[in-house]
């Protein structure tokens, strides 16, 4: 495949997956087994309620409209991808342009909503997606790339050498990953040991793997180990108490004699 075709394929695949998964996320509501996604229904309900429109009909209608547009948009990318597979460059360009245009309209609509609802972070997010789409189109259509050079199925000896290097590096990294996983996986449920930092106050430094199960096991283990103490109060250390990215969660347990 030529350099030009490879990069066009990478752009098409990225955006087709992007919109295909966005539509899937709208079709699957809430959190399900094998899918978490984002609860857009809850988001829209809250946005419209903040405007004083508490009737769920407004949020539902808006979400249905957006989802419909996204589905149509995904269809356009899919047609472009199929045309690309067939090698029809002119048809691919036409459908990809339509898809990009609809995507940009969608992000413009989202940006209007972000301004109305006062969500400046989402405004930045949608603005960035909008410019990336525009630039993707420019790269896809207007940047000249080599059409003669190809990356064949039988690479040169030099390339084969680098592939071997990549394989060795992958195996080494995977081996250390596996060892780390084996060494730390027990932290998914193992209770954390507390340290008495002030008289009657115990600190628990939770590992990154810990979740609510670890919390429950920790509190139960602590009470078993200290039958002479009564848990009076539990304080979750705010992020300011963490050592930047090194600490996951600090928990302080305040006790008194039982």
């Amino acid at each position, binding site marked *: 495949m030529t*350099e030009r075709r*490879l*990069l066009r394929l*990478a*752009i098409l695949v*990225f955006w087709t*997956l*992007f919109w295909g*998964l*966005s539509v*899937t*996320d709208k079709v699957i509501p809430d959190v399900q*087994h*094998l*899918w*978490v996604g*984002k609860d857009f229904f809850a988001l829209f309900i809250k946005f419209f309620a903040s405007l004083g429109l508490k009737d769920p009909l407004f949020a539902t209608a808006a979400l249905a409209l957006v989802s419909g547009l996204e589905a149509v948009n995904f269809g356009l990318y899919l047609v472009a991808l199929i045309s690309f597979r067939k090698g029809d460059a002119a048809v691919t360009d036409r459908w990809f342009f339509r898809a990009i245009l609809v995507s940009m309209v969608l992000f413009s609509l989202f940006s209007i909503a972000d301004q109305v609802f006062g969500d400046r972070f989402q405004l930045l*997010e949608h603005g*960035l*997606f909008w410019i*990336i789409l525009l630039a993707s189109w420019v*790269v896809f259509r207007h940047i000249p790339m*080599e059409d003669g*050079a190809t*990356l064949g199925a039988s690479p040169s000896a*030099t390339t084969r050498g*680098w*592939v071997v*290097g*990549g394989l060795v*590096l*992958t195996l*080494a*990294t*995977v081996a*250390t*990953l596996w060892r*780390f*996983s084996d060494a*730390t*996986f027990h932290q*998914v449920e193992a209770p954390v040991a507390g340290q008495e930092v002030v*008289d009657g*106050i115990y600190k628990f430094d939770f590992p990154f*793997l810990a*979740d609510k199960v670890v919390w429950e096991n920790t509190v139960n283990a602590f009470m078993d180990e200290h039958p002479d103490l009564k848990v*009076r*109060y539990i*304080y979750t*250390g*705010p992020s*300011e*108490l*963490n*050592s930047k*990215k090194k*600490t*996951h969660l*600090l928990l302080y347990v305040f006790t*008194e004699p039982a």
Partner: protein
Amino acid sequence: MDNPLIKSRSTQQLLRYAILLYWSIFWLFNLIDKAVGGAHFLWVGRDRFAQFQKYFASVGLDSPHIANAALAVAAALEAFAFVFFAGALVHELRGRTDSSHRLALIGTLFTLGTFTFFSIGDHWFGDRFELLEHTLFWFVSLVSWVVFTRLKAQAPTDPVALPKAQRLIAGIAGGVLVVVTATAIFRHNTTDFPKRTAAIAAEPVGDHIYKVAFPFLGGSSVFENSLALFKEQHPNEAIQHIYTVPNPLRLKKADALIFYIITEDTP
């Protein structure tokens, strides 16, 4: 002294090196982060196993083998991206621009593939911030490839090094600025570094309510030392509750952590 590398290479050639070097380092450190795993002395990085394990557990796939398999795919993509960019850099330095171009293209394709792979996960696990981050990296990779191919390896040499007079003025101005800035920073360090551990005295603000306003350097040691000091200064009161002031109630970036200690008299 003129750097011979800078003097003999065109600005376009230097930027080509910079692009290849950036992506080589980018992927090398991602790989090291995966290989190191967890926080150690002189390396914190990010616990990718914990991150992947939690993502998969959130969709009901608790087995560590699934997280391991996904990490292995990510590591493979990153390893190949690194190897091809490093290879491209080696060939570029030796003046073999055709080989460099081919290897950089493969490296870019691996980079685009890696970020596409991560984006699928972001949709699946509902992490919209990471989706934006990965899309931006995808875009940066695409643009850097376009820039790389537009820059000519054998372009006419433009002078990069400064003439002697400019170098002298820049050196003096730079030296003065470095001295002024460094003095201010070292002075700040002398006066403020103890705040990293020093206990803060709680200030009474109501009946059995005390305020503790943290310095920006404060962390868990300050918190613990402040509680110890509080207990020492108020032996007849027991801490009933600690209320952390939420961000909307703080003065933008001027307030660090503030919390209130609510107490009751010990019987």
